[in-house]
């Protein structure tokens, strides 16, 4: 529910001060939200920022503004190819025709609903035992190989990768390939040509799998998409089908593996929180509540999610005209004291906990129940099997990701137990 505010607030235009450079830099080996966000949240909720590849955007940091914008797909839409060269976080625009992010809002839910049955709470829970078994196997392998292990490579990435492969009905053996796609899709420095090249390779890869589904339809998500396409309902174009299937591969593993790895990097440095989490491993509800709080505080990226204003909107009493690019900071919204009392206190029993980590509005994360389940299982199995798990090196020695990726955090996470 949105609080329709603004009754007695005077509507103003954006105050044009010297804009800050976006995205704000993080401290070395830190996953703390840069302080600029919370300062702006308090003083300048609609802040003009200079974008890295030219132009300016407006950064939103308050829970209410981020929610209002994400909820209003008509006035604040996704950026389309036809918008041309708008201010952005990447070298080249990543818009692609027919993706969930570029179809009209009406069409969007039509497409999404073709597969939503595979992303329900119930289905996530049906997949849970398989994920518990998988994570236990991965720990077995880590124990066999000996210490130290790389919690990112050996554990965090393999779990969501296996889940998304099973769900889509694509072979896990090709995981290295999917990782490359993921890296490219998240790269902020890939040129339009490089993106196109990768896209063609991805299409080449998936085409025979689609042919196989056509000949012999399965219950996988790929099967659901193909079946729909075959029914001739004219619901899904070939481009939409490809774009959706390929997009899911990348959306399905990077986010979850980064969430887990980044939360582990933070919790391994907070023995008290780790103890609290350990005390919950036999209580699924208590663990679920803790994971929600972990998702609230875990930073995955240093930027924001873009939208473009199509029709004038009012945010925190400020009038924003059409054409402005908005950067929504879901992570800053997660620290808004108006919604989360003592936002910097980690409280595993926080209720209610209306986190923005999975977005809001029609584009809110399709995979969020799977992601929750995977995070719960990853943490539960790890702490049950290796209660003494800890960093093998000083935090400052942990290998870090290059900064051309949209995601931030450790590139490897060496641990002992």
């Amino acid at each position, binding site marked *: 529910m949105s609080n329709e505010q603004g009754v007695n607030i005077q509507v103003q235009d954006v105050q044009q001060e010297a804009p800050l450079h976006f995205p704000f830099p993080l401290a070395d080996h830190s996953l703390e939200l840069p302080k600029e966000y919370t300062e702006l949240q308090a003083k300048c909720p609609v802040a003009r920022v200079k974008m890295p590849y030219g132009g300016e955007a407006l950064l939103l940091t308050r829970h209410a503004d981020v929610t209002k914008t994400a909820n209003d797909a008509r006035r604040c839409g996704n950026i389309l190819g036809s918008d041309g060269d708008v201010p952005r976080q990447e070298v080249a625009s990543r818009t692609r025709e027919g993706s969930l992010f570029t179809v009209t809002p009406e069409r969007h839910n039509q497409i999404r609903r073709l597969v939503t049955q595979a992303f*329900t709470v119930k289905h996530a829970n049906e997949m849970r035992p398989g994920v518990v078994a998988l994570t236990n196997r991965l720990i077995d392998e880590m124990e066999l190989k000996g210490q130290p292990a790389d919690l990112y490579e050996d554990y965090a990435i393999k779990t969501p990768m296996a889940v998304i492969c099973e769900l889509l009905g694509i072979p896990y053996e090709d995981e290295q390939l999917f990782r490359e796609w993921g890296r490219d899709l998240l790269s902020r420095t890939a040129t339009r040509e490089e993106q196109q090249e990768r896209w063609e390779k991805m299409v080449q890869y998936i085409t025979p799998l689609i042919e196989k589904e056509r000949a012999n339809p399965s219950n996988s998500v790929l099967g659901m998409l193909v079946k729909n396409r075959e029914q001739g309902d004219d619901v899904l174009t070939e481009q939409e089908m490809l774009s959706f299937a390929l997009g899911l591969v990348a959306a399905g593993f990077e986010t979850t593996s980064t969430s887990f790895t980044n939360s582990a990097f933070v919790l391994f440095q907070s023995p008290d929180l780790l103890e609290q989490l350990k005390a919950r491993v036999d209580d699924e509800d208590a663990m679920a509540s803790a994971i929600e709080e972990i998702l609230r505080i875990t930073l995955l990226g240093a930027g924001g999610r873009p939208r473009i204003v199509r029709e004038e909107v009012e945010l925190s009493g400020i009038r924003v005209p059409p054409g402005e690019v908005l950067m929504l900071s879901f992570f800053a919204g997660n620290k808004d004291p108006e919604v989360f009392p003592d936002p910097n206190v980690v409280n595993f029993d926080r209720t209610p906990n209306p986190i923005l980590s999975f977005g809001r509005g029609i584009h809110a994360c399709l995979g969020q129940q799977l992601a929750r389940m995977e995070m719960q299982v990853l943490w539960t199995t790890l702490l049950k099997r290796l209660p003494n798990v800890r960093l093998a090196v000083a935090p400052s020695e942990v290998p870090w990701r290059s900064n051309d990726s949209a995601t931030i955090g450790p590139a490897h996470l060496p641990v002992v137990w």
Partner: protein
Amino acid sequence: MRVIAYTQKCIASGNCVLACSDVFEQRDSDGTVHILNERPALALLKKVRQAVDLCPNQVFTIEDEANQSELVVVENDQAV
């Protein structure tokens, strides 16, 4: 309090089910919200309210919120 679920807006996120599975479930066919119990026990009022707040796409509207002595939850499949 009367809660109306405009099911056409539902994006099948499942958050209402997490908040209150005694009242909300997701349809097997497409994951959209289905009301299991149109007259839930008053003890569930707080949880129903949480489901409304956690819904990512404002599927629910609340009427007569001040009246906390009655709880009705219904579906409406009209477009909004």
